[in-house]
């Protein structure tokens, strides 16, 4: 209670402070805070860049912050955003359970949150939760994987971070397709926590224990890049690798005949939509849309990889 009031008061104080400082910005509509995981993964960088560009176009100032998938750090960044008197928070969060309290705290301080990419396990706290249709996307990736595997052979699955709903939903989408083919046998399933280096190390050891693998399906593109690097280092360019995200790195690998396919999440556009909904909410008090919204994903393979740039497909 005491903490809440203190945060509220400090938030209030900085709103007042900001109101006076922003007088100097004639067209300034206020501050939008953009919080994402580390920009080491180009996916999150594209989100931050997309959100920031749109916010500036719409007349906002921005503050771009990185929580590194650490809920404690994310919590501190929420305090920063609250203290700075942000008018809205655009968030790709650090955990479906752990984030609920932070978003609630911002709401209590009068700051609406607009979530992208990852859900939280509560509705009614954030104003919008706009996420890629990971299940639909995973099914697209799995269908392509099954086709290239010719419906048979041993394969490995690299999973994302367990605390992230997207890791579970993608795996579920993969298996709802792949498990229909009894000749496709999963010989190893391990989490590489979305990380390229971790995927490289895991792939090396999995390959030692299971030299007879034919394919690797990955929960995201950075893990696909790590797995591919390990396979290449072991002289196993024959192994079929499929990713998820639609990064430029994987695009280049597909065009060079390395990784076979990925699934594009429209991350750049998604971040822009979140800012547009924040603007709509700030100016009218409502987005006019349901809180939780799904955006469909698109399969990327050698046929269309050349049209992919920074998580967007040119028509």
């Amino acid at each position: 209670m005491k903490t809440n009031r203190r945060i509220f008061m400090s938030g209030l104080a900085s709103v007042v402070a900001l109101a006076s400082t922003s007088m100097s910005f004639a067209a300034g509509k206020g501050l939008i805070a953009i919080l994402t995981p580390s920009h080491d993964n180009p996916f999150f960088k594209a989100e931050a860049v997309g959100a920031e560009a749109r916010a500036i176009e719409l007349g906002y100032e921005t503050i771009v912050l990185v929580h590194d998938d650490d809920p404690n750090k994310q919590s501190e960044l929420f305090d920063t955003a609250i203290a700075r008197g942000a008018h809205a928070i655009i968030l790709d969060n650090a955990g479906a359970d752990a984030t609920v309290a932070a978003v609630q705290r911002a709401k209590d301080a009068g700051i609406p949150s607009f979530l992208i990419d990852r859900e939280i396990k509560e509705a009614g706290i954030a104003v919008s939760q706009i996420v890629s249709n990971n299940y639909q996307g995973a099914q697209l990736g799995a269908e392509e994987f099954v086709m290239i595997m010719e419906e048979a052979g041993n394969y490995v699955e690299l999973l994302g971070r367990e605390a992230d709903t997207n890791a579970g939903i993608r795996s579920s989408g993969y298996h709802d397709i792949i498990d229909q083919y009894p000749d496709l046998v999963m010989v190893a399933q391990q989490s590489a926590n979305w990380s390229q280096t971790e995927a490289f190390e895991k792939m090396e050891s999995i390959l030692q224990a299971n030299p007879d693998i034919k394919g690797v399906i990955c929960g995201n593109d950075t893990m696909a890049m790590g797995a591919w690097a390990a396979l290449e280092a072991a002289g196993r360019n024959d192994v079929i690798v499929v990713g998820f995200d639609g990064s430029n790195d994987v695009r280049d690998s597909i065009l060079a005949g390395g990784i076979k396919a990925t699934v594009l999440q429209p991350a750049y556009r998604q971040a822009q939509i979140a800012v547009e909904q924040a603007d709509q909410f700030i100016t009218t008090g409502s987005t006019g849309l349901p809180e939780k919204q799904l955006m469909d994903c698109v399969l990327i393979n050698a046929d269309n990889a050349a049209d992919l740039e920074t998580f967007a497909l040119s028509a």
Partner: protein
Amino acid sequence: MRHTFLIPALAFGLATATAGCKIVENPDPNSATEVEANQTDEVRMAAYARDVWDAQVLPTVTNNLVSISDLRAAQAQDPEAAGQAHGLRPEGEANPWNFAVSGSGIVVEAKLKSRAAKLQIDTDADGVADLTIQLGPVIRGTALRDAMPFLTFTDFRDQIEFAKLAGGLNAMAHERLEIPDPETDVTGQTVSFEGVFSYKNATTKPEVVPTMLTFEGP
């Protein structure tokens, strides 16, 4: 939805943890028990799909039916206007339109032995298949779920639960079909159908999840 499933679970947790205290949530007489709260998403959503099938899903399909030929004509003029007039879809950017369609046609090709059994149908009498009917048990897509205005993502815990709901509805569609023996040759037979599909583009054949299917012989 979320409340239906979560609150009883919470209430139970509270009730056991604080026995003797006076925190009492109103139990929902139609809703979950502790056993149900412990079910997997898949089992719980399958049960939910069964609950809403006759009372809500089938009437929604019936009330929004458009004949496949009328729909094609409307789409040829203006796909977006056809969607506005006949389609169903969740709000939000770039969600595909779903349509509840009726029609009949001749079976051009039947794949009955597959887990993802399908019929290829010619509905405009040019001898070429122009529509696919998914028979299952493996039925692709989320058309049935996404065409139901009363099923909104916000009401569900997360994408996993919501995906299992789509699977549960597809399973109900399969369960209610009378599918011919896989050994029969149904090619050349006429079938009538009602069902739902997600519109992708003008060149992709509709993949209908049937809610009604009858074989009328050759």
